[in-house]
C-alpha cells in the first residue's frame, strides 16, 4: 500500500505528484467501487422496466417512415398485412406522417387492390461492421409466419440484442439504429380478446384495430396512457407495475379511451365506467390521441394555430386563444407563448385579451414552442372598426347569409317577402 493511502491527513489531489498518486489511487478505488455497485445493480435489476407517459421521451420519427413486414408475411398473411396498412391510415389522417415502402411507394398504394404487396416485404439484410443491417424503419413481425416470434430467445439477426417477449411490442423511435441488426423491431399479435364481459374473455376472431394502433403508437413515440399518475377514472389496476408510475410528459389530459391505454379485466377495475376505447377495441384514435400525434408530427409549415375573431369594434375585447390548448394541449406540450400587437408583447399566455381605443388595422404575431423545441408562428391583421362601420359591415354579411339561406329553401316554405 502506498504512503498516500496510509496517510490520515487529506492529501491534495495532484495527478502526477507522489502525494497526489496516493489520493488518486484512493479516488480510483472509490470510483471502481461505485462502478462495481452500478454494474451489480444492472445485473441484479435486469433491463429497465418499460416506461410510460403519453410522450415516451424517446424521440419521434421523420415524416416519411419506411415500413415493411418481416419474413414471408406478405405471402403467408397478405390479408392481415393489408388490414394493418389500412389501419395505419388513421395516423396519416391525424398527423404529418407517411408510411412508405422501402422503395418509397406509399404503403397504402402497395396494399391496395392491384398494388404490389411484395413491396411491403422486408428486404434481406446486409452486413455492416460484422452485424446484420435490416432496412426499413418499422419492421413488423406477425404471428404465424416463418419469423420466430415466441419467447424465449432473441430476435434473429447477427448482433441483435432484442429479446422475444410478450405478445406484442415495439421499439421506440430513438432505438432505430441500435436495433438495426434485428430482423424486426415491432411484433404485432392478432389480439382479439374481448375482455369487457370479464374473465376468461371471448376471442372475437378479428384482431382489434386499436391493438395495431397501440403498437404503432409506441413506434411513433407514444407511451402507455394507463401509467399516468393523474389517472382519475379507476380504469387502471392498482396492482399493475405501471400504476401511476409516470408524472411527466403529458401532452394532453388523461384519456381512459386512448389507444395507448390497456384494457383491464372488469373485476380489476370495478369503479371504471364508460370506457369505450383502450388497446382492445375498434374505436380508433381518440381526439386526444389525434391531438398528441398532431403535436408530435406537425405540418411542414409550422403555423401557430389560434381561434377567435380578428375583426372587432372599438372598445370590444379582442380575444384570441391557441387552438391547441383549447383542444387540450398541456403546458408541457406547448410553451413560450407570445402575442405581439404592432411589435409590442401583449401576452405571454395561450390567450390574447386586449382592447383598442381607436379604429384601425393592427399586426398581430402569435408564436409558441412545442416540447421538442420546434417553433410555430402566425402573423395576421386585426381590424378594429368604429361601431358604425362594424355594424354596417356585419349587417351586410348577415344579410348575405340570410339571402343565401332563404334562396335555397323550397318554394313551398312560406317566408315573408321581405325575407325572401
Amino acid at each position, binding site marked *: 500500500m502506498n504512503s498516500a493511502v*496510509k496517510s*490520515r491527513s487529506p492529501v491534495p489531489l495532484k495527478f502526477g505528484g507522489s502525494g497526489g498518486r496516493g489520493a488518486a489511487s484512493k479516488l480510483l*478505488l472509490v470510483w471502481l*467501487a*461505485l*462502478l*462495481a*455497485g*452500478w*454494474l*451489480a*445493480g444492472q445485473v*441484479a*435489476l435486469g433491463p*429497465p*422496466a*418499460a*416506461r410510460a407517459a403519453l410522450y415516451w*421521451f424517446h424521440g419521434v420519427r421523420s415524416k416519411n417512415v419506411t415500413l415493411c413486414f418481416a419474413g414471408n408475411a406478405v405471402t403467408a*398473411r397478405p390479408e*392481415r398485412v393489408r*388490414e394493418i396498412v*389500412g*389501419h395505419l391510415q*388513421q395516423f396519416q*389522417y*391525424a*398527423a404529418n406522417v407517411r408510411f412508405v415502402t422501402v422503395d418509397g411507394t406509399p404503403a397504402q398504394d402497395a396494399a391496395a387492390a392491384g398494388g404490389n404487396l411484395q413491396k411491403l416485404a422486408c428486404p434481406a439484410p446486409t452486413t455492416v461492421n460484422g452485424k446484420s443491417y435490416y432496412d426499413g424503419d418499422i419492421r413488423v413481425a406477425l404471428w*404465424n409466419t416463418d419469423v420466430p416470434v*415466441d419467447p424465449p430467445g432473441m430476435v434473429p439477426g447477427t448482433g441483435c440484442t432484442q429479446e422475444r417477449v*410478450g*405478445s406484442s*411490442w*415495439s421499439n*421506440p423511435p*430513438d*432505438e432505430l439504429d441500435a436495433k438495426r441488426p434485428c430482423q424486426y423491431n415491432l411484433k404485432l*399479435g*392478432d*389480439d*382479439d*380478446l374481448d375482455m369487457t364481459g370479464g374473465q376468461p374473455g371471448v376471442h372475437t376472431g378479428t384482431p382489434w*384495430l386499436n*391493438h395495431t394502433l397501440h*403498437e404503432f403508437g*409506441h413506434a411513433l413515440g407514444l*407511451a402507455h396512457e394507463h401509467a399516468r399518475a393523474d389517472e382519475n377514472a379507476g380504469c387502471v389496476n392498482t396492482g399493475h407495475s405501471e400504476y401511476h408510475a409516470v408524472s*411527466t410528459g403529458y401532452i394532453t389530459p388523461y384519456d381512459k379511451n386512448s389507444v395507448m391505454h*390497456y384494457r383491464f379485466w372488469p373485476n380489476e377495475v370495478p369503479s371504471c365506467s364508460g370506457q369505450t376505447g383502450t*388497446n382492445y377495441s375498434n*374505436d380508433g384514435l381518440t381526439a386526444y390521441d389525434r391531438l398528441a400525434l398532431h403535436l408530435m408530427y406537425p*405540418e*411542414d409549415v409550422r403555423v401557430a*394555430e389560434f381561434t*377567435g*375573431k380578428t375583426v372587432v369594434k372599438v372598445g370590444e375585447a379582442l380575444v384570441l386563444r391557441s387552438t391547441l390548448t383549447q383542444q387540450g394541449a398541456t403546458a408541457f406540450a406547448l410553451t413560450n407563448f407570445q402575442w405581439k400587437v404592432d411589435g409590442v408583447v401583449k401576452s405571454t399566455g395561450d390567450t390574447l385579451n386586449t382592447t383598442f381605443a381607436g379604429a384601425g388595422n393592427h399586426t398581430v404575431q402569435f408564436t409558441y414552442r412545442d416540447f421538442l423545441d420546434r417553433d410555430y408562428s402566425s402573423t395576421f391583421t386585426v381590424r378594429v372598426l368604429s361601431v358604425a362601420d362594424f355594424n354596417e*359591415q356585419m349587417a351586410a*354579411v348577415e344579410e*348575405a347569409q340570410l339571402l*343565401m339561406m332563404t334562396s335555397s329553401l323550397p318554394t313551398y316554405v312560406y317566408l315573408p317577402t321581405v325575407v325572401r
Partner: protein
Amino acid sequence: MFRSRSLRMVIVLGMAFLLGLAAAWLGQTDHVVAGTSQTSAPAPAAQAPDNNPADLAAPDAATWVTCTPNNVAAFSNRIHVRCNESYSGIRYFAYPTTNAAAAARYLSLLASAQVAGHTLSILYDPADSSGPAYGCAASDCRPIQAVALN
C-alpha cells in the same frame, strides 16, 4: 472515529458500492433515460392461425378542425376555403356545386368568416376521396361535411 485507516477505507468503498447500486436503481426509474420495448398486455393465449376475412375499412375518421380562412372561392363546379393551418397536408376544404343549396350555405359561412374575421370549425373525413371529381385535389383538399362559425 474509526479504529484503523483500513476499516475506514473499507467503509468508504462499501458506501461507494451502495451508491453505485442506488444509481443503477435510479437510472432504471428515471423516465428520461434510454428505454426499451414495451409489451402489450394483457397478453392473450396464442391463437389459432388467422383465417378471418380482412377488415380493410377503417372506421369513420371524420374530425373537426379549426380553420383561419385566407381565401374563399367559387368555381363552376365547387366552392372552397383555404386555411392558414393545414392538417396532414390538407388546407383546402371544398364542396361540389352539384348540390347548389348546400354549396350556397357553406359559401355564405365561409365568406362571412373571412370578412368578419372569424375562425371556422370544419368537419371533414380525411379518408373521403370524392374530391378530385370536382377539382378538390387529394393531396391538399377534402370535401366539407359541416362548417361552424366560431
